[in-house]
Structure formats: structure tokens, C-alpha cells
């Protein structure tokens, strides 16, 4: 039995490397994290009309996010109640029903089992169809169009789950009246890495930027990063829910201000009555954040993408990333948002590649029996985080790892079943 208290040392701020490769830890996470936490499943704009659906994953479980005839968004487990086969094998579209290709069991858009071939002859009329609907996430909720689902019917509300982190989501996703939309297409890639290396890094590792990404920084954005003093005015936040946020305060960078400047100005004007002055100041900066456990946000000079890190066993992860932009953004801005995402943080992006290398070989190199006797160090910034009047959570200037360890504090509580449900 996995006891997370033996893996995470809150006093010393260390993490046992077992958490990144042990199959037992992985199995326990499926129960204690992925069937209990709120998980991101897509954006409302991906399913605008009744019958629209996208297929994805909650952790390792395949799901379908579908807008019903009543316009409600439901999240079905993509597995037939008869033998477990996928009922949907394409990743997006518009459906009138979901029909299992194996024996033809058919479900309507509310998940009800409406069709069973040879119903009378095969089941002698005894099958109670109403008892065999598609499995459905008991909780589905959206925040600024970001749709999350939770497999635990006793879970706290999404608002409570996001908690103080809503302030940070607001400044990204509530900048304008029109709200945001997802760009078409999904970046999907896979790494031989544990999913938590990715999630913890987005939740508060600003320390790696100038090292892991040195090649990209030097050739593309060195000036904007401020040469030898990259950390001036930057800060990081962690919230008590275990969500983390990094702010790189280089708005209005000299090299590309001409291109992004008008967009940033437009966003700030729109945000005037929606956000606080502190939030508005951050529009156009670079932000990275993680909502526990596996939903991450990346805002590069205000251009947004969101992603999920889904495990595929203890040492494999699938990353899916989507571009997002304001619904009423000018056409050239929409194009720029897409191009920036492709060139920077995508499977061939000049920054993303570096992270894949780190997470893969961290996973490989730290899994040995001897290595596991020695913990990993998460002490940076410990005890120096401070409350702040304008920003919720605890704040620390970088480099720091308060947000990264915040992820592990939450992981420990979650794995010990200590989180409120």
C-alpha cells in the first residue's frame, strides 16, 4: 500500500524519486487522483452545437465530451456497457447517437441505451435498458468556457476546487466580453516521461527557463528576457489548492512590440471593467501555470494555449495542447496566436523540444533501486513566500520552487485521501 507520507517530506521539502516511475504509485494515482479531481476535458467553443463532440481522455480513460439536444455538455466514458468497446473512434464531429461497432448497442446523446440489436430474441425482453446507459461523469462544469469533469459525485464544486486560482484564470480567460475560443486542431505528442515532471514544471519551475531553453532564448528572445538579469519584476504564486503560477514580467518587449503592442493595448482596454489594475498590468506578459493535477496554461506575450498531461503508464505521457484566442480578435491576431504556438510550444517548437528531453531522461535516470534511496531537492524559496494584498495565494520572486512544491503538498494530501470531497 502506498503511503504518500513516506514519499513527500514536508519538513525537508524533498520528494522520493519513486513517485516518477513506480507502477504501484501509478496505480494508486488512478484511484486517488484521476477518479477524484476535476480534470480539464475541453473548451465550450469546441462543441458549439447540439450533437457536437470531441473525444479525449481523463487520465487514462477515454471520454467523449458532447453537447446534447438540450445544449447541456455531458462527459461520457467512451466504452460500451456490453463488452467495453469504444463507442466513438473519431476525435471530433457531430453525432446523432453513439453506436458500438462490436455488437451495435446504441446510445443517444444523453447516454441512454436506445438500441440493442435483436433485443427481444436475444434477451427475451428481460434486459432493463435503463440500467445500462453510457457511464457519465457525475460532475461537469465550466469556468470561462474551460470545461472540467469529475468522476467523484461527492467532489467539491469546480469553483471551490479552483479556489484562489480563479483570480489567475480570470486574468487570462476573462479579458474580454466575447470570451475565448479554441483554434482548430490539436497538438498531440508522447514522451517516455512521467506526467508529473511536466505538471510540476508548469506549476512553478521558472528556474529552468534560462538553462533548458538556452538555445531558444539565445537565438530568439534573449533581449526581451533582459540579458543577464532575467528575473527582474517576475514573481510566482502558489495557492493552497496546489495550483501554481509563474509570471515573467516582460510585457511590451522591444523586438516584437510593434506586432503585439496593438493587441495588448486592445486587451487592456477591454479588460478595464473586468479585471483589477494588478491583473491588467499582467496582460501581455508570459505566464505558465498548472491546475492540479494535469491541466496547464501557457501564455506567451498574451497568446494562450492550454494543455493536459495524461499518463500512459508510469513512464509515458501524452500531451495534448490547444491554441486559444479571443472570439472577436482581429484576423491577423488569430493567425499570430496560431503561429506563435506552432513555433514555440509544440512538438517541433523551439522551446517545447527541450522540455521533452528533460522530462524523459529525468524519468529514466531517477528510477533505479539505489537512486530511489536519495530524495530529490525542492527546497528553493522555502519559508520565504509571502502573502500579498493584491494577489491571492502566496507570492515569491523567482527563481523559486514554491509552486512546484505546492503541487507536491497537494499530491500528498490527495494521495492520503485528506482532501475535502
Amino acid at each position, binding site marked *: 500500500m502506498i503511503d504518500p507520507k513516506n514519499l513527500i517530506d514536508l519538513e525537508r521539502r524533498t520528494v522520493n524519486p519513486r513517485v516518477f516511475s513506480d507502477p504501484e504509485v501509478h496505480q494508486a494515482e488512478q484511484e486517488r487522483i484521476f477518479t477524484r479531481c476535476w480534470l480539464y476535458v475541453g473548451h465550450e467553443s469546441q462543441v458549439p452545437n447540439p450533437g457536437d463532440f470531441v473525444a479525449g481522455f481523463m487520465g487514462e480513460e477515454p471520454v467523449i465530451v458532447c453537447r446534447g439536444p438540450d445544449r447541456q455538455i455531458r462527459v461520457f466514458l467512451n466504452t460500451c456497457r456490453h463488452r467495453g468497446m469504444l463507442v466513438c473512434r*473519431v476525435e471530433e464531429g457531430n453525432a446523432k447517437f453513439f453506436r458500438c461497432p462490436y455488437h451495435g448497442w446504441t446510445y443517444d446523446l444523453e447516454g441512454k441505451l436506445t438500441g440493442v440489436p435483436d433485443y427481444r430474441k436475444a434477451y427475451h425482453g428481460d434486459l432493463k435498458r435503463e440500467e445500462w446507459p453510457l457511464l457519465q461523469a457525475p460532475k461537469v462544469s465550466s469556468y470561462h468556457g474551460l470545461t472540467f469533469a469529475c468522476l467523484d459525485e461527492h467532489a467539491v464544486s469546480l469553483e471551490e476546487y479552483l479556489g484562489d486560482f480563479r483570480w489567475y484564470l480570470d486574468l487570462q480567460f476573462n479579458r474580454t466580453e466575447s470570451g475565448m475560443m479554441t483554434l482548430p486542431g490539436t497538438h498531440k505528442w508522447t514522451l517516455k516521461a512521467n506526467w508529473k515532471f511536466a505538471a510540476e514544471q508548469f506549476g512553478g519551475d521558472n528556474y529552468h527557463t534560462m538553462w533548458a531553453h538556452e*538555445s531558444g532564448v539565445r537565438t530568439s528572445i534573449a533581449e526581451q528576457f533582459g540579458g543577464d538579469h532575467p528575473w527582474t519584476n517576475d514573481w510566482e504564486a502558489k495557492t493552497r489548492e496546489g495550483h501554481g503560477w509563474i509570471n515573467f514580467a516582460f510585457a511590451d518587449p522591444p523586438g516584437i512590440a510593434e506586432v503585439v503592442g496593438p493587441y495588448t493595448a486592445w486587451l487592456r482596454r477591454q479588460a478595464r471593467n473586468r479585471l483589477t489594475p494588478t491583473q491588467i498590468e499582467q496582460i501581455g506578459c508570459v505566464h505558465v501555470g498548472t491546475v492540479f493535477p494535469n491541466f496547464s496554461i501557457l501564455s506567451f506575450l498574451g497568446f494562450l494555449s492550454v494543455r493536459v498531461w495524461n499518463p500512459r503508464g508510469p513512464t509515458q505521457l501524452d500531451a495534448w495542447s490547444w491554441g486559444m484566442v479571443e472570439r472577436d480578435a482581429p484576423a491577423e491576431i488569430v493567425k499570430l496566436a496560431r503561429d506563435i504556438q506552432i513555433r514555440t510550444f509544440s512538438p517541433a517548437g523551439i522551446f517545447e523540444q527541450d522540455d521533452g528531453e528533460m522530462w524523459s531522461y529525468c524519468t529514466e535516470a531517477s528510477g533505479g533501486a539505489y537512486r530511489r534511496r536519495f530524495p530529490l531537492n525542492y527546497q528553493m524559496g522555502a519559508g520565504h513566500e509571502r502573502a500579498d494584498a493584491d494577489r491571492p495565494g502566496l507570492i515569491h520572486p523567482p527563481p523559486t520552487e514554491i509552486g512546484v512544491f505546492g503541487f507536491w503538498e497537494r499530491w500528498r494530501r490527495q494521495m492520503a485521501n485528506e482532501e475535502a470531497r
Partner: protein
Amino acid sequence: MDRVGLRQQLEELLYREAWLLDQDRLEEWLDLLSENIHYWAPVRADMNRGKEDFSPPLRLAFFDDNKDGLRLRVARIRTGAAHADEPPSRVRHLITNVQVLETPGAETAKVASNFLVFKSRRNREENLFVGCREDTWQLHGGAWKLDERMILLDHNVIENITVLF
């Protein structure tokens, strides 16, 4: 030039190009590209038959670069700090099924080719990238330059892409 002669000439050009990429002679590879090159690779998706549409201008792509973007990729590798390719990969481009699709004018040729790119790195890291390319080559002062390349990778979920196609 007759059709067979043209195909032979373009085939040789594609082999030469692949040779430069495999030899890490990336600066010479850049010289084969026109200043207006559009180099892109749309993302794929599992859709109902006939429904996959990768052409819309706003759909995400793995690559969508102009010449400056490709120069930046090469410059980045030359920093010696592009960690996903240090130590460098052993890369082999196998180019096949070369077909001249159209010759809209004497100085333009649209060419399709298939590729199989093998990448090996460190002890056990191995990747295979498979797909096809649709190119537009143009004669500039007697030399063929690549003006447009659409790379259709046959992968949906892909591994870290550190190679050029």
C-alpha cells in the same frame, strides 16, 4: 526538357537535399530554399472517412515556417545548447515515390515524394517519421529552389520532432 529528364533532375535534387540534411550541412540546405519559402506540416486527426481537413489556414500545424523561421531553427541547433539534439541524432532520410505532379511553367515544378526518416540518438532512443511531401520547386537563375513544401506526416500522436523533412 522531357518529362523523364525533368523527373531525374528533380529526383537527384531531392536526394542531394536529403544528403545535406543527413550530413548536418544545414546551412547548405538553407541555400536550396527560396527566400519566400513556405514550409509547413499540418497536424493530423482521426476523423470519419473523407472528413479530415488539414488545409484551413488556422488549423494547427507541426511546422509553419518562412525562411527566417528555418534560419532560426538552424541557428538554434548551432548554439550547441539545443538539448534535445545534443549529442546530435543520427538521421537518415529515405526519399522514394518521386512524382512530378505538374509543371505549370518551364520554371516551376510541383513534385511529390514519400519519406521515411529514421532518427537514432543516445543509447536506445529511436524514432521513425513517415509521410509525404508536396513541393513546389522554382528555377531561380538556373538553379532549382524550394518555394513551398507541405509535409504530410502520417502520425497523429507524435514524438519530439527535432528533425527537418
